[in-house]
């Protein structure tokens, strides 16, 4: 059965800390891996990773994919209270045709304290 596993389940840090969130996957038809940030509403898109070893960056956030070891990490440097959220990892399956489905992990709850 295809699955996406995130760790840790939750994390409490102080402002200014650096955090690393983990995502491992076992998906038969892997196409790409996506990271989302979810506050008290809809998940908002952060990154899509398709190739191994190529880091994607956006401000203090960065992410990288390892397709050999089947995992990805999301790094957040100099954390701020506004980074507090659930971070979701999802794998996009590849059926080569009309389908386009995401398999989600259960998320990592990040709390950044002042």
């Amino acid at each position, binding site marked *: 059965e295809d699955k996406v596993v995130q760790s840790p389940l939750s994390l409490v840090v102080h402002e200014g800390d650096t955090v690393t969130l983990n995502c491992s996957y076992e998906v038969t038809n892997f196409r790409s891996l996506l990271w989302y940030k979810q506050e008290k509403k809809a998940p908002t898109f952060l990154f899509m990773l398709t190739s191994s070893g190529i880091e994607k960056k956006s401000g203090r956030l960065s992410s990288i994919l390892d397709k050999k070891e089947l995992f990805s990490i999301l790094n957040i440097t100099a954390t701020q209270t506004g980074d507090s959220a659930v971070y979701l990892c999802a794998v996009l399956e590849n059926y080569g045709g*009309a389908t386009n*489905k*995401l398999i989600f992990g*259960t998320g990592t709850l990040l709390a950044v304290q002042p």
Partner: protein
Amino acid sequence: DAGITQSPRHKVTETGTPVTLRCHQTENHRYMYWYRQDPGHGLRLIHYSYGVKDTDKGEVSDGYSVSRSKTEDFLLTLESATSSQTSVYFCAISTGTGNTIYFGEGSWLTVV
């Protein structure tokens, strides 16, 4: 903003009643999805559509049906709501195969 509107945003209904949630998009995207989100389970795909009148089941489709008669609207129907269908429902869209999936604001449904 991916131009997705869900309605209603909040609803309380009684067990056994039918409920329809609507997802409306303004940008002609081909793919539309319905997910539900529950504690401990994350986001799970209910049904999806890859074009007008083209739909298929996701991993948790039992008790749900969908329809897509126009590109812009994707309806999710609970024929006879049960308490286990109390959840947050998210509509999502994608512009094409392999493209990023964007989510609507969510519909909170409580079945009492």
